[in-house]
């Protein structure tokens, strides 16, 4: 199902020229955002682009400088308390009570969200099982591993079955296996109908979203689905692993038809106007200069390249 055809469904989150200033900086600048119910929306952008501020604004944690926003049908400036029952918010750093046990943290938030007492037991057990924390339920939260802490935090934000989940870099500092598990949980929730807005520094995670918004210096510069973003990359991509990547990088950048060179450790990603035409040219040039390399191949651009390419272009402007 394509969302373009579902325009009649009113958005669950909608902002108009939403702006937030801090003392010296404008953290969020005239943000227009429209998220439909059931969407899994990814927020990406370099550090300091305004992702955290956007999520905090939507959670009602910060005052709006100007503009307006509606979340779950309520006005963000005037009815923040009504919104709080509809959303679950998870901050970037661990924000639960370390000296309380897993179960105590859960029941604390259950009480604050007025979860029906009759449902409490069943829901707590389900969330513990779902987060894989059943056997750790009496352990103090401070003594859990980073991944388990994140899952506990998610469980606490889910205790009142919110319509909207706002997650700020939920998998930062978590091992790859836990990260995968965490995203499986998010996908399940999303399939069950929860709207999710998640910020992430990982492009593979952004790729799993239905739509991705790229923020830069407080503004939303691109907002589209992952394929569209990937499609915005001009040209084609060549990957190679030179032994002296600095020299190789300098050389390749000077070649005709090369649009951009990105480095990933000792890997080079070269954007060219036409891979068929430029790949042999690059190989020739490298050999001519005595630069050895391994594993040169054509690859399809990923979110990561698209992202870096877009940011580079913004920085040049």
């Amino acid at each position, binding site marked *: 199902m394509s969302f373009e055809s579902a325009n009649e469904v009113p958005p669950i989150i909608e902002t108009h020229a939403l702006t937030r200033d801090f003392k010296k900086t404008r953290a969020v600048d005239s943000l227009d955002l429209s998220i439909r119910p059931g969407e899994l929306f990814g927020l990406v952008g370099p550090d300091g682009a305004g992702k955290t501020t956007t999520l*905090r604004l939507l959670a009602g944690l910060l005052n709006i400088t100007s503009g307006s926003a509606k979340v779950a049908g309520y006005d963000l400036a005037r009815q923040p308390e009504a919104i709080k029952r509809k*959303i679950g918010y998870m*901050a970037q750093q*661990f924000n639960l009570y370390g000296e309380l046990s897993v179960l105590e943290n859960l029941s604390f*938030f259950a*009480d*604050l969200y007025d979860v029906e007492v009759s449902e409490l037991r069943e829901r707590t057990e389900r969330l513990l099982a779902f987060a894989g924390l059943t056997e750790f339920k009496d352990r103090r939260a401070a003594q859990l591993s980073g991944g388990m802490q994140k899952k506990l935090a998610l469980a*606490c934000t889910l205790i009142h079955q919110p319509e909207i989940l706002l997650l700020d870099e939920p998998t930062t500092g978590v091992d790859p296996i836990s990260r995968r598990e965490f995203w499986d949980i998010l996908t399940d929730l999303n399939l069950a109908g929860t709207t999710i807005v998640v910020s992430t520094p990982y492009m593979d995670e952004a790729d799993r979203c239905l739509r991705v918004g790229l923020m830069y210096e407080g503004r939303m510069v691109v907002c589209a689905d992952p394929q569209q973003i990937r499609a915005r990359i001009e040209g084609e991509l060549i990957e190679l692993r030179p032994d002296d990547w600095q020299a190789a990088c300098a050389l390749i950048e000077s070649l005709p038809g090369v649009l951009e060179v990105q480095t990933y450790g000792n890997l080079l990603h070269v954007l060219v106007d036409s891979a068929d035409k430029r790949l042999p040219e690059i190989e020739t040039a490298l050999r001519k200069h005595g630069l050895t390399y391994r594993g040169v191949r054509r690859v399809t651009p990923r979110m990561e390249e698209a992202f870096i390419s877009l940011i580079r272009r913004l920085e040049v402007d």
Partner: protein
Amino acid sequence: MSFRHLRAVIRKEINHILRDRTTFVLVMLVPTAMLFIMAYALTVDIKHVPIAVLDYDRSPTSRAFIQQVTEGEDLDLYAQVDSLDDIDNLLTRGEIKAALIIAPDFEHDLLSLRGIPLQIIVDGTEPKSGGFAVDHIGGRAEEFISEALASRIRALNVNVSLDSLQPIDLRVRALYNPSLKPRVDIIPGLISMVLGFPALSVALTLAHEREHGTLEQVLVTPVGRAEFLLGKMIPYIIVGLANVIIMPAIARVTFHIPFNGSFPLFFLLSAVFLFAILSMGMLVGVFMPTQPAALALSFLVIFFPGFFMTGIFFPIASMPAEMRMEAMSLPGTHYATITRGVFLPGVGLDVLWPNVLALLGMGIAFTAVAALSFRKKLG
């Protein structure tokens, strides 16, 4: 106000206090330990105050007078000196607190009833022991004069009784504290000061949640502001009330301070005071972003005023008018009145109701201002 929210916050806060054993022990112990230490300092009776004597008269009468002054444990004769310079030197070094100078015509003047030519020099930087020495020498001088007068009258053989030479029979009675021992009223007063300590802990708890980020997670829940703040205060009221049970017991058993009023009433009014003073702590906590800032401000607005300006040591009536107003707006002032009133005259609500009303009003006002100023926002 949701009772469920309140209960959840209280339970969380109690767990927080209990889980960190060292802090828990300290929170419980510090007020009582403070009372104990300060009360002990107050039970020290002044005695053995060192003085010097400069006797220009060197007569049998002057020697008898010196003998009489330094008898007993009150004043110790540190040195008989020959010049004022010696006195200056000894006072500067702090080796004596006062000096007695007997004029050359001491015997003559006294026996002819012309007066008592003696001078006392006292270290003005040590009013406690210095003042004690002055009072003591003055008292002995009076006795000495009475004796001299008596012998003079006997010699004159006139028909005047000795009594009539002290024509006003002054009868002094100190109620509630017959020997006017400072500790009898200052120890109950100090209870108001040390019970203020939990307020400093309360001021820290909000900043603690801010610094550790836990506040952010609470702010996105629908919990009410007053529910949250009261929920954080109530566990500390309980901690304070535990001290309220221990402290009168210590005052009575260890320091022999009478407790003449009703204990249940005292307990109840202590709870009201704790509510007022902890609200003050909460108010500080609401405005201060970090624990050191909260601590510094609560030292300035809760601890020091609670010590110096609540009338425990210095009577409020003698303060300048502006400071009297300030004193009356401190919860400790009203509670000190309550503790003294319940301990000593043993008065009840019929007398104390204005103070109770003031405390209740402060508690409600501080909590309301704290809840209204506490924004459920970051930054």
